[in-house]
């Protein structure tokens, strides 16, 4: 027994001690002493390799978790959108100043519908028909704000209306169109057209408003071809998020194209595969 003590039992103790350190959470612990036999040397080396892998895996796990939380937070911000909400509050305040209570009622009803739509429970998507309803409300409110200068034509087939999409996808485009299209003292005409052909849905959002200059147009195109990382930017972030959501939900087949001429207007063409809730 005394003969075995240094060659067998002592190295075993070393391994046990190392195991306890790892269990305590000290993932940096490594066996530094040399094995007294080739067999134990191998045990020590593989123990160290295992401890190393454990640490890397744990780190990667943590990183993935952080990414997930960031994305969830981003989605939440995307949905509640303080900018949007504060603008509506300002509108309600302004209407109150003017004693226009009927318009205040309508604005609050729209806001209620909007939030009910957002906090709809667990479903990831909603029928386009519902989204069009919310868009209708938005355009009514925009007409309070811009004093009835926005004329909209919505032309979407019943087949397309039945399809489900992640909420606010189209709403964001309409908002963008109103915000950037309105020219003082002039009417803004918006066309929202939705068709389905060969399993592909195409939405056209076109206006005859102020349009984009060359630089803005190129920038928009870069966003929609994935050439820009706008992670830390404030401008264009709405469209960038819309693009990312479209891609992450519909995959490769989804696309956004943009055409624009200054003082003539802008059009967005949004394409994605026709899918129903069941066959997704």
């Amino acid at each position, binding site marked *: 027994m005394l003969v075995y003590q240094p060659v067998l039992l002592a190295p075993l103790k070393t391994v046990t001690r190392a195991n306890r350190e790892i269990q305590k959470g000290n993932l940096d612990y490594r066996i530094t002493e040399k094995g007294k036999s080739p067999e134990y040397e191998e045990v020590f080396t593989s123990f160290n390799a295992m401890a190393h892998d454990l640490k890397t895996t744990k780190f990667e796990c943590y990183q993935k978790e952080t990414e997930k939380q960031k994305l969830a937070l981003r989605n939440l911000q995307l949905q509640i959108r303080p900018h949007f909400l504060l*603008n509506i509050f*300002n*509108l309600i*305040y*302004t209407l109150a100043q003017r004693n226009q209570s009927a318009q205040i009622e309508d604005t609050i009803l729209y806001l209620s519908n909007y939030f009910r739509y957002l906090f709809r429970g667990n479903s990831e998507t909603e029928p386009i028909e519902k989204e069009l309803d919310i868009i209708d409300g938005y355009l009514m409110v925009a007409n309070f704000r811009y004093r009835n200068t926005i004329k909209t034509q919505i032309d979407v087939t019943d087949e397309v209306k039945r399809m489900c999409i992640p909420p606010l996808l189209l709403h964001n485009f309409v908002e963008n169109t109103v915000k950037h299209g309105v020219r*003082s003292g002039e009417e803004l005409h918006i066309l929202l057209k939705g068709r389905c052909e060969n399993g592909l849905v195409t939405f056209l959002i076109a206006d005859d408003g*102020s349009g984009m200059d060359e630089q803005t147009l190129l920038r928009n195109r870069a966003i929609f071809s994935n050439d820009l990382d706008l992670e830390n930017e404030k401008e264009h972030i709405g469209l960038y998020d819309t693009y990312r959501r479209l891609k992450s939900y519909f995959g490769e087949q989804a696309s956004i194209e943009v055409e624009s001429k200054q003082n003539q207007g802008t059009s967005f063409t949004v394409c994605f595969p026709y899918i129903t809730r069941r066959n997704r």
Partner: protein
Amino acid sequence: MNLLIVNDEVLTADTMKDAISWKIYGIDQVFVSYDAQSARRYMDAGDVDLMLCDIEMPGESGLALLKWAKENHAEVECVFLTCHASFDYAHEAIKLGCRDYILLPAKYEDIAAAVKKSLIRSVSVDRSSSCASAANWLFRK
């Protein structure tokens, strides 16, 4: 003293013009512009002492407009309005020399009082106090 209200939100601009009794606050005439281009025309005509300007406008922003105003009509003072409390905006606004910075929605009495205060200050020429009020806003956050 003449005031120019600059805001792309037509209803907000019109209401601020109509619902505030500007005369009480020492304002003789109130003009309204819905974009920077028309605002520049009013300033070029030499009719404007102070502008009450929204920061977030499509095309040319309120910040760009004040920069232009300081280069071309240094005597025009500015009070900014915005719905969004952004540090970057406030910082830029101070650098450009705006008199005050108000978060919307705000009580119309408060907006009018800020306009009056800015005019009094612009007469007594005390530049440091405008920075103080903007700095106040920044650090209150």
